[in-house]
């Protein structure tokens, strides 16, 4: 395996700089020299090309997101050539029989035109939509990987926030795109957003009128969403991706503990040539998988949904998966959360889920800062944690995932009911319980499982595996021989950090501030139950016990 640390360096480009003009140069060398004399690229390429990228499958999830975003950009550009973001009424005159002569907006009719008349249009439209779904899914999985391995710790807290903002922007991109065709499904989706906005006290109606340019649905929204979808949001996403990647280069990539891997280095193949070749090939694989899916599987058949009309709502009307958690939150609120007071209706059906989701999102976004404050750890961390070695964090993550999953499943409550022969009410009540109580159950179970796994690791590191081989000693004693781990395997099990709960101490003026007390309580919650890593002394004595 070819490995390189970030410090080591040689590059063909820099070698070319030093050669004299009398020698006959290859075209590549001449071109490289020409470029370098004018741009000083050599230093940059030398620095970047020798960066090491640790090898682990989960480190490629962010790349999947990046690559599917590139597919979204390429296919989206094609679609803008044919899509017309206008809500002016027209009559469909294309080849799809069940819509012939039906009145619809120009936006809908141009989307149908893309689907049925533009050569390759339906393929590109489906690829755009599938790639968008994959984009957000890959972001989600990438975020889970970063969270559960603690890769958001110093110095990467800011990059977590940048990434989280990207996740929110990706959802916004997805939703604005979902709303553009002006078919029945997208109109129903917008109507729910309109309802959400109007559910905000005092300002809701004003915001809704501002957004839709008057009473819903109006004639302005598609054009406005289009500007957001193809101009503002993509520009922000591209800018933040650039920042995100610059941060990755600046911080170096995290790596899992292993022999030769220290917080001061990054072990893996260098970007040039190995990693760049792998990543370049991987882009085409992602592109190919998306192309295959797009050519075989229908997505968003707007011809079924027909043009938007405020009166019909189809059974099975759902948002795309990444907005599902918000739709689910609305579905889970029990009926009747409103009352009359001061001659006004005070409704909590919308504002409660909105606030709950807002808090959930903010907590997830600032989690790195919270954890850093609780641990009081100011050191840099470049070795990724195994989830079990940070039991409280892993348990918090599991609770968050359960909460999200409950909301997410609730968005498909009707489909769950029909396809598993359940009652709608039963599904909703079960999911209400899962969403509210599930996180607590998930927290305790996960924490105990993590501690148990740590105990098992400790046992294996100290005493090895039971080999099942019984040996009779000359004195008549029977012993079971334990098979010891080799050094490499053991290193993986014992090299982790463990925190002890903070001691609350008086400050210079002899007082204990409330801040410190809270921090003490939180720290105790985090680190009270813990399995200490195996110490050198324990290892030594264990070696003397068994042979």
């Amino acid at each position, binding site marked *: 395996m070819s490995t390189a640390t970030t410090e080591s360096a040689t590059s063909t480009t820099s070698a070319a700089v030093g050669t004299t003009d009398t020698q006959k140069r290859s075209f590549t060398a001449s071109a490289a020299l020409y470029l370098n004399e004018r741009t000083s690229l050599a230093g940059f390429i030398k620095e970047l090309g020798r960066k090491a990228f640790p*090898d682990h*499958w*989960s480190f*490629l*999830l962010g790349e*999947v997101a990046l690559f599917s975003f590139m597919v979204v950009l390429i296919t989206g550009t094609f679609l803008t050539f044919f899509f017309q973001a206008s809500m002016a009424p027209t009559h469909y005159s294309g080849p799809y*029989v*069940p*819509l*012939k*002569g*039906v009145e619809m907006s120009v936006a809908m009719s141009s989307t149908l035109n893309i*689907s049925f008349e533009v050569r390759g249009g*339906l393929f590109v439209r*489906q690829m755009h939509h*599938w790639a968008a*779904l*994959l984009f957000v*899914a*890959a972001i989600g*999985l990438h975020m889970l990987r970063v969270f559960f391995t603690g890769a958001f710790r110093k110095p990467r807290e800011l990059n977590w926030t940048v990434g989280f903002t990207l996740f929110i922007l990706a959802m916004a991109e997805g939703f604005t795109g979902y709303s553009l065709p002006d078919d*029945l*499904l997208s109109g129903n989706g917008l109507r729910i957003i309109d309802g959400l906005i109007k559910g905000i006290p005092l300002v809701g109606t004003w915001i809704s009128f501002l957004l839709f340019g008057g009473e819903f649905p109006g004639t302005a929204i598609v054009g406005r969403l289009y500007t957001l979808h193809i101009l503002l949001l993509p520009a922000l996403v591209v800018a933040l991706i650039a920042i995100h990647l610059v941060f990755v280069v600046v911080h170096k990539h995290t790596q899992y503990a292993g022999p030769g891997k220290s917080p001061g280095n990054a072990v893996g193949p260098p970007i040039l040539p190995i990693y760049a070749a792998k990543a370049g090939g*991987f882009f085409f*694989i992602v592109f190919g*998988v*998306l192309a295959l*899916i797009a*050519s*075989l*599987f*229908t*997505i*968003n*058949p707007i*011809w*079924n*949904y*027909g043009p938007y*009309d405020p*009166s*019909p*709502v*189809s*059974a*099975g009307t*759902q948002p*795309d*998966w990444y907005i*599902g958690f918000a739709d689910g939150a609305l579905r889970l609120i029990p009926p009747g959360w409103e009352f009359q007071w001061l001659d006004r209706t005070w409704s909590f059906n919308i504002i409660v889920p909105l606030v709950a989701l807002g808090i959930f999102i903010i907590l997830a976004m600032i989690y790195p800062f919270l954890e850093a404050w609780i641990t009081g750890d100011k050191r840099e961390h470049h070795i990724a944690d195994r989830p079990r070695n940070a039991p409280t964090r892993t348990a918090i993550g599991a609770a968050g995932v359960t909460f999200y999953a409950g909301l997410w499943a609730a*968005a*498909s*409550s*009707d*489909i769950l*009911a*029909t396809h598993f022969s359940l*009652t*709608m009410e*039963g599904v909703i009540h079960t999911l209400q319980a899962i969403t509210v109580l599930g996180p607590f159950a998930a927290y305790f179970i996960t924490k105990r499982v993590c501690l148990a796994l740590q105990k098992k690791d400790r046992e294996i590191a100290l005493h090895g595996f039971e080999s099942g081989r019984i040996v009779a000693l000359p004195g008549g004693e029977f012993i079971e021989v334990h098979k010891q781990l080799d050094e490499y395997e053991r290193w993986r099990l014992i090299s982790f950090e463990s925190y002890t709960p903070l001691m609350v101490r008086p400050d210079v003026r002899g007082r204990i501030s409330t801040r410190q007390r809270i921090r003490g309580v939180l720290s105790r919650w985090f680190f009270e139950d813990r399995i200490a890593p195996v110490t050198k002394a324990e290892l030594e004595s264990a070696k003397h016990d068994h042979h």
Partner: protein
Amino acid sequence: MTRTKRRTGRRHPFVFFGLLLLGLILTGGAYAAVSDDARARASVDANSQHTIDEGKKLFQANCATCHGLQAQGSGTAPSLIGVGAASVDFQVGTGRMPMAANGPQAPEKPPQFTDEQIAELAAYVASLAPGPVIPDASLTSGGGDAAKGAELFRINCAMCHNVAGAGGALTEGKYAPSLESTSGTHIYEAMVTGPQNMPVFNDLTISPESKRDIITYLKYTQENSSPGGYALASLGPVAEGLFIWIFGLGVIIAVTVWITAKSN
């Protein structure tokens, strides 16, 4: 010599098979022409006393336990006086009746009776009191305006049955079934009789021509596969999300594992 003798004296040996084939095509063609929706009535005269008597026997043997000996209904099942032949043809023809077990809703299952028996049962129930009749084939075999039908379907039917007729959930375990393989006659009968939880769409709500348009649209969706490829059961974004997470991301993750695998 012999050749000419043969030609005049005997028919060609294949003539027999030719005639047989012609006869079969004619019989089959004639049968096909009157079959489909008219199949049951082709062999049974719904108005004859004999048919009604046969129907009554079938009814008393198979339906009377719940619906009563005079079809007057009971505590567990409604009266069938006045429900008409259309109701019987729908309920028994789709296998919903006789019900296998009490539940929120009678599910569709393979019919228990032959077409002839169903026609006899329908004739008996229709003889009790006037009610919706089995629709004429001209209204149930398509040929209307699919675009108008699609619009009517979206406005009147899609909130329960889904825009693509894939079905949907109702309250307390009830559901609107999928229409992806329902025959034109049964769709029409369901509209005029309102089986189970479905409302009645009588001729004043939706005219027979409009019903024909709706059936034309549904037949279009039944006969034409999705232009975009496999339709994922036409369930919409839930099926799409499930697909991209399990199959899309699944394949991609398998590839990431392959890319980062260490060579031995």
